[in-house]
């Protein structure tokens, strides 16, 4: 009796094992068909994941993207552990040539300052660039400081200490934010500078855009900066900023587009365009494009084609999804320029890997 039972158990276990094994083999073989992996910035992570999901439903190929910070993306593509890297911090033309990388933009977004002040709603608080730099330096310590009150007559600001929240990891969002502060504040430029991991004079660090968002939400009297989508998704209190034309405005997709309208895409070497503190009444001062890094010389022509096929699909079909998340799609002229660059710069064995139709 026991022998029969054990025999049945063995058959059962063997069947389960065989099923599991064949499922793994099938999954593994399915995983090879046109799969692409990328990592990097958390700034565009929401839209890349959205595009990847739709692309998989349409074409069956999966694009795996993990947000670990722009610094991590640059390191990963240089170490060749992923197929493409994503960064909000544009690499200089010299750096790109030294590493044999090519960089192209995908969408444009903005960095929004978020606050947590009891009694202050989204859009009520007004800030300027120099004041924001002073807050982040730790020079302005409470919310009812005269410098903040002067800009915000009519807003009831409590006597609450300011808790500054920044990023604890290397981040392109941080690069955009600190480079903007360096543009508008000489003290910031000399003491801290624009960097993806600067020596913060004050405050606490959160991990990733979601980490900063959560810390600001939790901490009364705090101020932080996140990519605009996270501010919107987590219902954060957003502050208005003063732009280069001395106009106060809220971050919106239209304001990011206004900032991008004057950008000189065709004449900037390596596509390393910065959209900070752009002139224009409706331009958001802390806008930026986010970039993809791929190798100019692709070892596997099919893999190179798969990468570009995904982004070409995103250029053609991803605009609505990007707009829904308050990212600004690139102008048609820029997309055409990028497609021409793909045909001439991304090669495998001397031949271009992908020519867009």
């Amino acid at each position, binding site marked *: 009796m026991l022998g029969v039972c054990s025999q049945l158990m063995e058959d059962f276990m063997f069947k389960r094992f065989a099923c599991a094994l064949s499922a793994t083999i099938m999954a593994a073989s399915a995983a090879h068909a046109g799969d692409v992996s990328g990592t990097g910035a958390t700034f565009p992570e929401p839209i890349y994941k959205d595009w990847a999901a739709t692309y998989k439903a349409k074409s069956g190929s999966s694009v795996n993207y993990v947000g*670990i*910070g*722009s*610094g*991590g*993306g*640059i*390191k990963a593509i*240089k170490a060749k552990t992923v197929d493409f890297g994503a960064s909000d911090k544009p690499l200089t033309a010299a750096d790109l040539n030294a590493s044999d990388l090519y960089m192209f933009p995908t969408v444009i977004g903005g960095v929004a300052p978020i606050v947590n002040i009891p009694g202050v709603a989204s859009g009520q608080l007004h800030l300027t660039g120099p004041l924001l730099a002073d807050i982040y330096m730790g020079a302005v310590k409470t919310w009812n400081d005269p410098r903040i009150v002067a800009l915000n007559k009519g807003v009831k600001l409590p006597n609450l*200490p300011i*808790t500054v929240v920044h990023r*604890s*990891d*290397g981040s392109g969002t941080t690069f955009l934010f600190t480079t903007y502060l360096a543009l508008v504040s000489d003290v910031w430029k000399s003491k801290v*500078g624009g*960097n*993806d*991991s*600067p*020596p*913060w004079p004050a*405050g*606490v*660090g*959160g*991990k990733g855009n979601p980490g900063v968002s*959560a*810390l600001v939400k*939790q*901490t*009364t*009297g705090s101020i932080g900066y996140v990519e605009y989508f996270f501010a919107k998704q987590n219902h954060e209190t957003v502050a208005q900023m003063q732009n280069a034309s001395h106009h106060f405005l809220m971050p919106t997709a239209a304001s990011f587009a206004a900032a991008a309208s004057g950008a000189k895409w065709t004449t900037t070497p390596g596509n390393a365009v910065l959209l900070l503190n752009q002139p224009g009444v409706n331009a958001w001062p802390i806008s930026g494009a986010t970039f993809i890094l791929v190798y100019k010389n692709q070892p596997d022509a099919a893999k190179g084609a798969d990468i570009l096929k995904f982004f070409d699909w995103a250029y053609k079909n991803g605009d609505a999804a990007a707009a829904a998340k308050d990212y600004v799609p690139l102008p048609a002229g820029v997309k055409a320029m990028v497609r021409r660059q793909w045909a001439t710069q991304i090669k495998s064995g001397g031949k271009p890997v992908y020519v867009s139709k």
Partner: protein
Amino acid sequence: MTAVVAETASDMQVQASRIVRGSWGESLFRAACLSAATFLLVLLAGVMGALLVGGWPAFHQFGFGFFVSSTWDTNNDVYGAAGPIFGTLATAAISLFIALPLAIGVAVFLVEFCPKVLAQPISTVIDLLAGIPSIVYGMWGFFVFAPLVANYIQTPLTSALNPDGFWGKFFAGVPNGNLFVASVVLAIMILPYMTSVFRELMLSVPSAVREAAYGLGCTPFEVVRSVMIPFVQRGMIGGTMLGLGRALGETMAVTFVIGNTHNFPKGLFDATSTIASTIANEFAEASGLKLASLIAMGLILFLITFAVLALARMLLNSNKS
């Protein structure tokens, strides 16, 4: 009598022949054990070697200054580990300071005073708490405990104290991510583990010894202090060192609630970082000298843990009597 002797002799002969026949099995067993031990030693040496080789550029560049400087400047590539080292030692020390008396107290209560019907369920709950993954404690600390501390401890203290006085500076700081919250979260994390170890140890004291002490007229406090704790001293030291080791190496629970800045904390509620949290935050994108500095910090943590274990060994050996 001779029949018994003859039987025993033949048994022994059979056994002896069994040993001779199975001797290749014995030497195979011995070789397997030896290779397992050697493998572990080689692995340990390999890890230390890798850390040393990886961290060497940082030690070479910064020298002794690496241990005492708290600069962390990515722009100019100057790094110093003093802030994280101090944060690691401070959080571990404060958490042990909080957890150790509590663990002893709970264990003594469960063994001496608790009604038998409650003791078993409470012990089971403590064992379950000891098994909860540490990241859950980190999440609880971030969403529940840190705001409570910010609202009910920090805000009253900062408004009541003069910001320029000594105590005002000591208790000033940031809410939601500071040394105090991280230490308390660590203490709560290591408390169940230490409590269950201490409880097991105290239950192992023979009841004859305890009853003899009571018979001599000792109060429960005297029984615990003079009889039970000396009896289980060695085990308690071992349990404490294990708790301390866990507190030193804890990563994710601490990263949520410690504030993640590189400076030396200026007060109890100031943001700081530990070696583990700094590595967790910055390893993904570090390269060159920054990567070497992080690996060097990993080596320092390795050596700190070694030192703690060596200290435990010393204490155990000195208490051998």
